[in-house]
């Protein structure tokens, strides 16, 4: 089963990398970009087909390793069965 975890900085946390990317986009004359925040995506393959269990596993993975919840939020998506 495929799943995707997205980790982003909480609102208000300074993101120098996002700022640098924002500046680069401006310098490339890519118009209309107001702000950039950089995050991380983890594509994860989970054993079995139990969505509920997969969410629980990924929740634990986020809480214990993938995100630092002091400064980061996470979102979990589990792919719908075909």
């Amino acid at each position, binding site marked *: 089963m495929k799943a995707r975890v997205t980790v982003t900085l909480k609102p208000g*946390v*300074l993101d*120098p*990398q996002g*700022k*640098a990317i924002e500046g680069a986009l401006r310098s490339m004359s890519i118009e209309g970009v107001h702000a950039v925040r950089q995050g991380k995506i983890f594509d994860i393959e989970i054993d079995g087909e139990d969505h509920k269990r997969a969410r629980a596993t990924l929740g634990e993975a986020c809480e*214990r*390793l*993938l995100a*630092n919840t*002091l*400064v980061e939020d996470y979102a979990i998506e589990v792919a719908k069965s075909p």
Partner: protein
Amino acid sequence: MRAAVILFPGSNREGDAARALRRATGRPPAIVWHADHDLPSGTDLVVLPGGFSYGDYLRCGAIAARAPIMRAVASHAARGGLVLGICNGFQILCEVGLLPGVLMRNANRRFICKLQHLRVENVRATFTRGYPAGQVVRFALAHGEGNFEANDETLKRIEGERQVAFRYCDADGRVDEASNPNGSENNIAGVLNSRFNVLGLMPHPENLIDPLTGGVDGLPLFEALAA
């Protein structure tokens, strides 16, 4: 004083830490591999050295914080044993939850490599008792992610409990925005836990132990640990 330096893949300041400990204690520290489960018996002080453990993958210190040896380090700290985290070691201690807050990318986006003045804020800890209160010292900085951040409640607590060990300042001891190299909240350069037996700091005292290489401002820290 029996010291142990933990070696992670990507640590690179373990030699500097070992040299400072040897100079202060008269004997070389044990070097302990991250995959070990136990500290050598009789360990008084654990040092997490600087470097780039696991290449800073995921977040600085995040993967090292989950290494097998860190359970033993946490138990050692819970028993009141001394733990010193320098630079990447500080990042690891925050990630493992032995110290509050988190180290984020420097606000100016630059890797900082320079000598930096610090004011010693709390001299009641074993680590800092070798300095007079308010002493201005000069340690080496070498980091890209040393911007100490914590939420307001945590900041209030660590300030109230005198957990700030060192603050960035100028040569005259002035703590202000101009003397803050990386954007850290309240110019915080080093933090103690609430029991004062765990210290994390971004600057490198272990590099200031010999007049030949810039000064000896770091020696009182190691000598106080050895005393």
